[in-house]
């Protein structure tokens, strides 16, 4: 059977409808034999289902739980942070584990970061410029000169720690993509 009142009938048998719904379902039951049978079946099945109310845990289960609880409480009272960690709820444990993983993962990535590729000093700017202008078409118009931006390449931190006298490279980038000026020197700026 399939009647739009089925869901309401299932609520009606246990008195879960408000007054107006109850009246509507009861008047429907008087005219729909299928729903009438359904209500009868539901009353019977509910009575059988409710028989599991009689079930109670046996004494051994209760005693085992009580013993574990009291042991856990004793651990919480006397234990340090380690035992407290294990009495945390799942969410707290998951959060702590997540934070720990982030820290460990971040640290591992930081340590695994290899030294940057050594910077090969290019030939002098004038030479390069000349070489480029031979093959490239003549520039249409040079854009207005802008103060060159200075990018200072930082050497790898690990190497910096190990070799304080490491060579430092300063690269001057001009607006002309073909012109890059490099300065090589040590950390002192010599």
């Amino acid at each position, binding site marked *: 059977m399939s009647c739009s009142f089925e869901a309401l009938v299932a609520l009606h048998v246990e008195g*879960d409808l408000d007054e107006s719904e109850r009246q509507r379902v009861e008047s429907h039951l008087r005219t729909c034999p299928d729903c009438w049978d359904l209500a009868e079946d539901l009353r019977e099945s509910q009575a059988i289902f409710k*028989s*599991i109310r009689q*079930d109670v845990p046996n004494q051994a289960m209760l005693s085992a739980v009580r013993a574990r609880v009291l042991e856990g409480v004793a651990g919480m009272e006397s234990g340090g942070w380690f035992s407290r960690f294990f009495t945390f709820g799942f969410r707290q444990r998951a959060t702590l584990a997540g934070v720990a993983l982030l820290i460990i993962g971040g640290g591992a990535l930081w340590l695994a970061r290899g030294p940057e590729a050594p910077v090969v000093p290019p030939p002098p700017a004038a030479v390069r410029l000349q070489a480029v202008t031979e093959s490239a078409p003549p520039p249409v118009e040079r854009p207005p000169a802008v103060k060159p931006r200075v990018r200072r390449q930082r050497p790898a931190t690990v190497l910096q720690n190990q070799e304080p006298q490491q060579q430092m490279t300063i690269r001057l980038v001009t607006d002309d993509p073909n012109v890059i000026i490099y300065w090589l020197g040590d950390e002192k700026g010599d």
Partner: protein
Amino acid sequence: MELSASQLWMSKAPGEAERTAEIIAGAIAGDRAAFEEIVLLHERRVLTLAFRLLGTAEDAQDAAQEVFLRAFKYLRGFDSSKPLEPWLVRMTVNVCRGAGRKRSRIRELFVNGDNLQGEDSGKNPYAQLRTEEQKRFLYEALAGLAEKERTAIVLRDIEGLTTAEVAEILGSAEATVRSQISVARLKMRKAIARMKGGRDVL
């Protein structure tokens, strides 16, 4: 006026509220015996509910332990003028819902009827066998429900809470809970009809 099951559950005998407040205060103050008394008073209900929601003795015991440890941890924040049992029931439902168990495992172990004992055990062995068989079938049918349907019908029809109380515990709208209960009852009816002899109910 007739009291509902849940009202009876929350009602207090004269002097009981004071005694409960005293026990809770003692437990908060670190009196281990007072906390043990709380466990003794409520362990049956917590464990039974956990068993009905989870379906295995092992999971139910784990959940009950977790409930009481949480209770111990958060007891300081509990308003001792209120009854303790609804608080523990809510906590039990939350712990069981978060247990993350697998349905196949529930299906497998719900049928192990050795862990709960009926009140009529020890009578006629044939009648007992029939009862055990019926119980096994009911738990299996219950395990076949979706988690929310199972929780809703257990709280409403077995634990005897009102729909409004179930909705509050589940953090759902009352209309949603009514729908879950209705669906669950119809499914249980079909399962029970099959149990009774395969009568076609479709």
